[in-house]
């Protein structure tokens, strides 16, 4: 018997630049900056080169951090008997499965007010955090949506569920 279609919530951070675009941009910056630095190295002023290199490393690291955030995905699938969470980047995906009837959705406030809250899905001593790339209001929205869907699936286990849901706006 085919499995009932789940509710699927996908959380994706907003990212305006593709990896390809980032590479082109970074290559252009490297060409220009190192071009200038090597021009001075040829004149004998080599100390400019390490500063250009350091700066390009910093730029590359900043771009990489920002782009890696864009690769992140969280897919929360809610089946009649379980909640599956698959999250991470393409090269390191983690998944967790929780029985629907025992699952807790808990939005924990941070101890320091300016820090973000944490949205935890848990059961039987296992837990999984979701919505880390979201802002506070989006995380609250996701929490509300998860509770609604789990409640709904719990009440109507035999019903075919083929509606795809998403939090208010999956994009950050």
């Amino acid at each position: 018997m085919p499995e009932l279609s789940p509710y699927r919530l996908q959380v994706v951070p907003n990212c305006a630049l593709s990896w390809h675009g980032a590479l082109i941009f970074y290559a252009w910056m490297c060409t220009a900056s190192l071009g200038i630095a090597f021009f001075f190295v040829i004149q004998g002023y080599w100390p400019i080169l390490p500063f250009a290199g350091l700066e390009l490393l910093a730029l590359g690291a900043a771009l990489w951090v920002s782009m890696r955030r864009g690769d992140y995905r969280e897919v929360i699938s809610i089946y009649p008997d379980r909640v599956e969470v698959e999250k991470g980047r393409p090269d390191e995906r983690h998944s967790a499965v929780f029985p629907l009837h025992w699952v807790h959705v808990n939005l924990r406030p941070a101890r320091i007010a300016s820090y973000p809250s944490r949205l935890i899905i848990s059961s039987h001593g296992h837990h999984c955090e979701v919505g880390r790339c979201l802002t506070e209001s989006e995380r609250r929205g996701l929490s509300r949506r998860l509770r609604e869907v789990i409640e709904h699936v719990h009440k109507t286990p035999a019903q075919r569920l083929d509606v795809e849901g998403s939090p208010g706006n999956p994009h950050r």
Partner: protein
Amino acid sequence: MSHTADAHHDHHAAPSGFKRWLFATNHKDIGTMYLVFALVMFFVGGTMAMIIRAELFQPGLQFVDPGFFNQMTTMHALMMIFGGVMPAFVGLANWMVPLMVGAPDMALPRMNNWSFWLLPVAFSLLLSTLFFAGGAPAGGWTMYPPLVLQTGNAFPFLIFSVHLMGMSSIMGAINIVVTIMNMRAPGMGLLKMPLFVWTWLITAYLLILAMPVLAGAVTMLLTDEYFGTSFFNAGGGGDPLMFQHVFWFFGHPEVYIMILPAFGIVSQIIPTFARKPLFGYESMVYATASIAFLSFIVWAHHMFTVGMPLSGQLFFMFSTMLIAVPTGVKVFNWMATMWRGSMTFETPMLFAVAFVFLFSIGGFSGLMLGITPADFQYHDTYFVVAHFHYVLVPGAIFGIMGGVYFWMPKWTGHMYNEKLAKIHFWLSAIFVNVTFFPQHFVGLAGMPRRIPDYATQFADFNMVSSIGAFVFGVSQLLFVYIIWSCVRGGEKATTAVWEGSHGLEWTVPSPAPHHTFEVAPEVP
């Protein structure tokens, strides 16, 4: 049965106390800190300018000895460039770029915090040299060797503080570039970005390309002084003139780093108060990019008199002339935007119109200086001082002031006192000319720059210039009062603030909440 245990907590309130500022990662808090820091530095640098103008009020030595006078000219420039103008623009970028592109914050908020907090450290180090035996650096902000190597104990502090300022600028630039490139709201294509964002993107490129050159140059000064190298030491086979080439390779893009964001601000203000879209948006973007490119191939026009081949003189003269083309495109587009617009002249618009007019004067005197044979006459005279002050005061600083008046209602939620602001504008606009216009005349008549005493033939214009400077300086206290009173209260600002306002930043409430665009906005 599923359970939920949401415990709501209001994370949207801004944290309070000194930790809010010390550990700030919110772009608005950091923007505010940058702007306050810049304002303080304007007054520190401005006080130095007052000392300079007091000494030049009449011929002879009245108040300070020549050594201290040289310290004041050097420190005034460093304070105003690296402490005033650049942090003010970074502050405006921190506040407005995320709001304009629909991002919830800067791309790297912790780095943003670090890049700000380097600045007070850098300037504390630099200002502390005023109390050293031998005093603060006095060889000019350009740090030409071998003069700068005679600085004494302050020298390594100068180099270290310049490194810190550079680090701060680079981190700020990287953050802005990554924010603009990667955090634009869906639908916010590059050619939909507001001009202020565009000009800052190009400014950040300039910073990233130019700053390593400055860092390398000052490091070579340091190694020449303490580690026995001879990059710029003629006695060891080096060439002190090459420092000028290396320095101005950084220095000329730096000039545009200090003016391009002002172009962006004016390009936001004029369409708002002319109630018309900006004329020639794309040509403005291309003109900005052209100016940025040309800024890297004109550096030697700062040093025509040091001696260079005729071909070099011709190349740098013509490439300098070429900058007038994209700059002319910009001035034309601003005027075309105003043409037949339903213009009103609130304070931001007054500053923007004054910017267009007075910056053009600075641009024209720049063209005069770019003509090699003429520059041989003008070089190192007060004409140069008049030129770059016209570019930087009614140019960059008027741009900043216009931007502050334009966006302050969005920041504070209150309208500023329009009557007082107009008085501030007129005092500034009149006395900036009283201060700097006569300097053209004394410069053309041959008065050298960076001197505490001068021939009596220059006395009258110098007295006028000093009076202008004092009134201009005092009138800036009014600016502080207007900002202070606007922060404290006033007429409630609406969301759109201005009748002709257009853009994402005007869709968030006034004052802008601590967190904005938590849900990515729709860009039409």
